[in-house]
């Protein structure tokens, strides 16, 4: 298949200070507008806000968070599209730039962020891969599958449906995990909070099992089979707490999911 390559570059050479402080925006059309695609972003500093919408192209808006120095470097926002795969690039790296991106609803995302921001993905169906070094990860009203990791941040994820047979993983070093599974999800949920607590809406199921603690006396994995079992869902926080929710408990789960600061309550 011969792929069409579209290169969209919106390099703004702005001479005036006032102009350089404004948000920049580009629109990225897809080579196959009716099919799912993949968005790949490695952001250096700032937040990432991805929202699924009814359109067929990507709309990317980059806003500087702070008023910068006297002669700020202008924001350079670029995208390369090939076969519905889009790689986004944003510079200058040292500036804190918040990204708001609209994508078609059936879209997969691979997002990485090094500093200063939450990664939020909402109203989307696809494979979601997120790695956030110093910030939270929020998935709201998503379907499909997810692999999420963060060092310092919390992970809050609320799924409306899962891709059958596909494993997922959620890992944080110091943050809390709060994952809401659909009522009919079939899964083997594996939880571990090395220094925290685990609360699991599904744990009353008689199938719950626990692996033996290892030699160093660390917390063992706890297994809970949901609806007869299925692919492995791996939830681990080294220093935070782990919360597994059943969707039916939260009528407005998209807004109701919050992480209580359980550390301060003990």
């Amino acid at each position, binding site marked *: 298949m011969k792929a069409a390559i579209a290169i969209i570059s919106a390099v703004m050479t702005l001479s005036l200070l006032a102009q350089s402080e404004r948000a920049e925006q580009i629109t990225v059309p897809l080579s196959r507008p009716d099919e799912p695609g993949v968005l790949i972003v490695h952001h250096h500093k700032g937040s990432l806000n991805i929202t699924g919408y009814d359109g067929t192209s990507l709309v990317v808006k980059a806003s500087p968070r702070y008023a910068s120095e006297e002669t700020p470097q202008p924001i350079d926002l670029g995208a390369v599209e090939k076969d519905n795969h889009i790689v986004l690039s944003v510079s200058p790296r040292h500036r804190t730039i918040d990204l708001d991106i609209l994508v078609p609803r059936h879209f997969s995302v691979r997002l990485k962020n090094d500093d200063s921001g939450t990664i939020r993905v909402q109203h989307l169906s696809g494979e979601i891969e997120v790695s956030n070094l110093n910030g939270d990860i929020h998935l709201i009203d998503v379907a499909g599958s997810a692999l999420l990791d963060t060092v310092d941040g919390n992970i809050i994820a609320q799924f409306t449906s899962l891709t059958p047979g596909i494993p997922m993983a959620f890992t944080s070093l110091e943050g809390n995990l709060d994952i809401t599974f659909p009522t009919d999800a079939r899964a083997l949920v594996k939880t571990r909070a090395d220094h925290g607590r685990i609360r699991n809406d599904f744990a009353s199921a008689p199938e719950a099992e626990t692996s033996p603690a290892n030699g160093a006396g660390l917390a063992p994995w706890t297994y809970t089979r949901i609806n007869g079992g299925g*692919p492995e869902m791996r939830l681990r926080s080294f220093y935070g707490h782990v919360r597994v929710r059943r969707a039916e408990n939260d009528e407005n789960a998209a807004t109701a999911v919050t992480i209580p600061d359980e550390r301060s309550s003990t």
Partner: protein
Amino acid sequence: MNDSDVKEILLEYIGGDLSSDREKELQTLLTEHGYTLEELDELREAYARLDDVPVPAPSAAMTENFYRMLEEHKRQATARQRRLDSLLAWLRNRCDRRLIARVAGALVLLGAGWSLGFWSAPDAHYDRRLDDVTAEIREMKGMMAYAMLGQSSPTQRIRTINQIRTCGSVDEGMVAILLNMLGDDPNVNVRLVALETLAMQADRATVRQGLVHSLGRQESPLVQMALTDVLLSLDERASISQFRGLLERPDLNDAVRARIASGLERLM
């Protein structure tokens, strides 16, 4: 239609690139032999469902065995990285699409054979034969997993590692691939799942050496922490110099630093 033609059409079907003409051909072929396309799909689905088999936790005997092996290992020298690299290069060459297709085809043929046996000749030894066939399928699953590890989706890679765990026969080649994933996979969660699977194989000298060697190469605080936990739980003294090296890094995460510092005291 001869034997190789049959294999070819089945491979195309498994690969999902069967044209509608060829699909009709396959249907005719199956009908001639008393099967339907749905039965072939059922077999494929049955294979996929084997993923859902939960992994048993390691037994106390396994842990004891590990410590015994560890005592022997403590006297041994460091990893033989060059041999590992050449093995990995060899494996990468093997993990091409054609191999995957061949293994997939073999699985279907095995499944078809199994079903044929099941439908045409039920007998008193059925249970035993079923066990044999199940073992064979598990072995094939292992081979399949082996060939699939080169694929690009991290979700698929985790799925494949889970298959390796459930196939019950992890060989040295798979250990080498898992160590490679622990060292180089771009996704942190894939590296953590690879680590977990390797930790279950910690009675192998190559695994312990590989884990120790990997520690100094890890950049992610999450993997550093998980690997530190595994090595400390194994009381792995060969990792002391690696731990000291990590402590010298100015950018080491504070939580990881504290964990290593307290662990080192216990190890020494």
